[in-house]
């Protein structure tokens, strides 16, 4: 399972390099890959650090490339993020453990379903947002986006703290 997580981290780090093959992006990608690798092998916080670096690399690649939004690619990156976090976490739990019969097949099916559902959900949401932005032109769009992000994060935090968010 750690191998699957390693492949997914390579995909995550490689996607921005495919968008903009520059030295800065590759350097940031290398750092992200090392951190992800260490996170998969040693400690989950390093994996989070690696993904944070990979998102920075993705942002840098998009900023350097410019052009219209690449929403399909972004959905793919999002699905890879979900799978990477879940496979790495499962790999950590399954390391040096007896795996019961049919567990791996069931887990694969669960991940496939999660990838499909979250991917379709994200595609639908982004398509809806594209249509809405084409029809409604809001003034101060960046400010509204920032407020929307803040509201989203606060809502998620409140929803999770009601279910006892774990300590870092």
């Amino acid at each position: 399972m750690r191998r699957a997580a390693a492949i997914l981290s390579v995909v995550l780090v490689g996607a921005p390099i495919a968008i903009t093959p520059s030295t800065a992006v590759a350097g940031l990608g290398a750092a992200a890959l090392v951190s992800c690798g260490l996170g998969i092998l040693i400690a989950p916080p390093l994996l989070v650090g690696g993904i944070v670096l990979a998102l920075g690399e993705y942002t840098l690649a998009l900023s350097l490339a410019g052009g219209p939004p690449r929403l399909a690619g972004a959905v793919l990156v999002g699905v890879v993020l979900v799978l990477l976090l879940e496979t790495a976490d499962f790999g950590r739990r399954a390391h040096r453990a007896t795996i019961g019969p049919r567990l791996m097949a069931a887990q694969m099916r669960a991940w496939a379903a999660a990838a499909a559902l979250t991917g379709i959900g994200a595609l639908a949401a982004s398509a809806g947002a594209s249509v809405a932005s084409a029809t409604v032109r809001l003034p101060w769009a960046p400010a509204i986006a920032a407020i929307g992000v803040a509201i989203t994060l606060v809502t998620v935090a409140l929803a999770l703290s009601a279910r006892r968010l774990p300590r870092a």
Partner: protein
Amino acid sequence: MTARLTPLVLSVVTIAAWGLVLGVSSGRAELVVAVLPLLLGLLRIGRTGAAANGWTLARALSAPRVFEGERVTVTVTVSAEQPVMLLELFEPLPPTLRLASGHNRGLFRLRAGESVEWRYEVECVRRGRVNLGTVHARLWDRAGLEAAETSTGLPGQLRVYPRPLPLRRLPAPRRMQAFVGNYVAPSLGEGIEPGEIRAFVPGDRVRHVNWRASLRFRQLFVTQHHQERNADVVLMLDTLTEAGEAPDTTLDASVRAAAALATGYLARKDRVGLIEYCGPFRWVRPGSGRAHQERLFETLLRADVMFSYVTQEVALVPRRVLPPQALVIAISPLIDPRFEKALLDLAARGFDLVVLSPSPIPLVRRATRPSARADLACRLWALERRARADALQRLGITLVDWDPAEPLEAALGGASPARRRRVAR
């Protein structure tokens, strides 16, 4: 069982927040879209039933009693009445057990009415009563976002007896007891070992007539026989202190030697007793037979170093525990001077005394990093031990220095000729 969110949720939220912040600050919608699957994935929390508790556990051990170094197969059977998404089981092993094959952690998925067997093998590295006890269980949802924990106590008592050391020759006792045994006693009577020849007197049995002597001297002579008697052997175990690293401390070596000696003497029909010298005494009265061997082994299982300022006199040990005619085999690394004082006391009281001293030096050397300083310290220690051994031997005490890495039989065999000469005298 209450389900709680796992640290994975925190990771997801952190990454999602970072992605949203990057998206807003860079003005790229892709980053917002990229973290959408993460946020949508959080909607699965509470939908995959991590708090289900319709499952039971049972544990079986391949053997409840084993010797050190032997392996035991632990079989845990998980049965589910309701479907279980992902069950993680963990059995922490006590330090006296080592995982030999398989894993002591398992992940299972069960359908309703299904049973799964989980096996692993442990090696028993040190004597003692081991309780496998508690199994920790954690029920996960499929995404790993939520988990519920519980612990289940299962019976799993394992008795690990000291490793048997091969021993064919044992120190012979100087004095015998009244019961039939395997030693040739100096006293004459019924037996098979021929002794002196004397003239026939009325009442002697015809089968005792020595025909060769009778024909030569033209007068009837009979052959007398030595009686075969048993002996009382008391093993005195020094548990005041130990040196070395578990499972190869001087106490472990002493307990193995005590078990081997007890087995050997009991096989010869001797009565064997045990005194644990640990400040306050603990003892087992001399006895014989299989049941008594079990009793001795049970006491040896519990033998452990117990620090105490209390020092009791050997004179306080009752005669029924330490009979005056008994052969006392003291097993001690000779580290604590209190035990040496007890040995001198025993020797002064005229006990037939043999000291078996498992040397702590090789055990300590094995546990420490090699260095010139350690070598020098060990050499000085060896000289000091030799000086103390010489002092004890000058008092007439038979001392057997034993390197626990070497066979016990070889160490006891080296001391046998000198002791045989002393016993013959």
